[in-house]
């Protein structure tokens, strides 16, 4: 229970942030026109990850999957930001 709680809280935070950054990045003009609605979505998204983390079978699995998701989203964002 505690492990899943920590996974959702600790890994859910950067995951929510990175997903929003990715979403804004692919929108026209890097999502300038949607920045505030995007930021408003941050807390609901983080909360969703915190609640969602309890659906994992075990704490280890929660850390593994959410950690992996963080790495995937971060790498995608990093690749997209490379000058073409």
């Amino acid at each position, binding site marked *: *229970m505690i492990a899943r*709680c920590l996974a959702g809280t600790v890994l859910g*935070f*950067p995951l929510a*942030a*990175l997903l*929003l*950054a990715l979403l804004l990045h692919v929108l026209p003009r890097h999502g*300038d*026109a*949607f*920045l*505030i*609605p995007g*930021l*408003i979505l*941050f*807390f*609901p998204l*983080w*909360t*969703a990850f*915190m*609640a969602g983390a*309890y*659906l994992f079978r075990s704490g280890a699995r929660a850390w593994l999957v959410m950690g992996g998701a963080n790495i995937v989203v971060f790498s995608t*964002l990093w690749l997209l*930001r490379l000058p073409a």
Partner: protein
Amino acid sequence: MKAATIRTFQTVHTWTGLLAGFALFVAFYAGALTVFHDDIAAWQNPPWRVATDSGVSMDALIERLLARHPGARDDFGVVLPRDSSHAAYAYWQDKDGARFATASQMEAPRTDASENELADFIYALHDSLGLPVIGLYLMGIVSVLYGLALVSGILIHLPQLAKDFFAMRVGRNLKRLWQDAHNAIGVISLPFHVIFAVTGALFCLFTITLAALNTVAFDGKLFEAFARATETTPAITLSGTPATMLTTDALMELARAEALKNGVRTFEPDYMHFVHYGDRNAVAEVRGLSQHTLGSYGTVAMSAHDGTVLATYVGDRYSLNGISYASLFGLHFGSFGGRTVQWLYFMLGLAGAFLFYSGNLLWIESRRKRRHVDQPRKTRIMARATIGVCIGTCLAITGAFVATWIAVRMDVDAGLPQRVACYGLFLGACAYACLRPVAKATIELLGITAVATVAMALIDLATNMGAMASSWSPLAWRVIGVDLTGIALGIVFALFARAAARRARDGDANSVWSSRAPTPSAP
């Protein structure tokens, strides 16, 4: 959903509720009163007790500001008086931080916007429990827990929700009654709670969250993008040529005309912001409150020299960013729909406070040992804490009203008496709830709160009668409104006290709430 998953969410709901419930009770009770912020300000300082400087015009205030603090001319604001018995004050940044002053305070400006205002103190209790800096972060964390409690609460009740929604099983099973009341209020006011969980977290944790997101995910470019998205003051360069400035009245008139052209029906200016005052390129920005729109606070930026409109963020002219940002405030404070919405927010705010109170009672009730006189230690502690904190908060806020009332009539600053009365009564109530038998403490604390609240309102009405009769002003309705609401709240406290007394007398003796001699348990 599997039964095990539902049990997990049940645990999440219980723990988030336990951790955040007390702070949320304070936030919701004080928040419900904050809806009537301006009415409480009028109650403290009614139209027939004119405040110092309330007659000084805004132009005279600006002149006085610039004569005494010439450095402020590059960037300062003026907060308009909220009614005829309050004074306008200027706001600017000194080298040591923010400064505030009405016309006669220019020699010794304040560092606090309004340290003696009861309405602002109640607001501070609402957003940070009145604690500096740490309180705001604490309430931010509480808001996040609150969001999690909402999600888990909905998930656990989802399976029976449709079936039990209209059920109110009034009967001998008290736990079920509390459960039904808790669920009904939680579900009916869900949209309202979602608004607060989201906006509350944003308001309290905004700066640190922005800084964290900036580093984690936005490559250091978030601050700049955020400034671009919310900026309302057009960037200008100093011309160096002095020029005459339009009067504040003329600027407000121009702003109102511009706002009404852009799809809002009302525009009540409440704040003005000046950049490079006195220069040919000076900008004046007027912020105003519009009703029946989510962008309730709009701004019009003009040349302060000739009144040319430079930028408009009102009604139809809002960008998606602008309207989202503005709507956060409108939705949180309920300032978008006049009196109707204010009353709705007030009632839902009180219902929210009741939600957290009933959550605690439910926790105690579901751990009750029906066949034992001796109740578990943890439920006794929880009962004492719930009584002390929840009823203590209500008593403390009534105490702040009383202290303010006396201070104003003795012509002393109300800031300190308010805080002493409020925190003193709160701690006193908590200590009382710890020492006295729980059932007696509940009845007595509710009784004192009821009597104090009704007495304060009646005394205020009685002493104001003469002034109202001799110099009637429409603002007097606000004072009467606050007092009548106080009487109504007092009656509610009295009804709660009566219910608690009944339960102590006639209810099940095997309960923390009973004051009856316990019946021997069945062999």
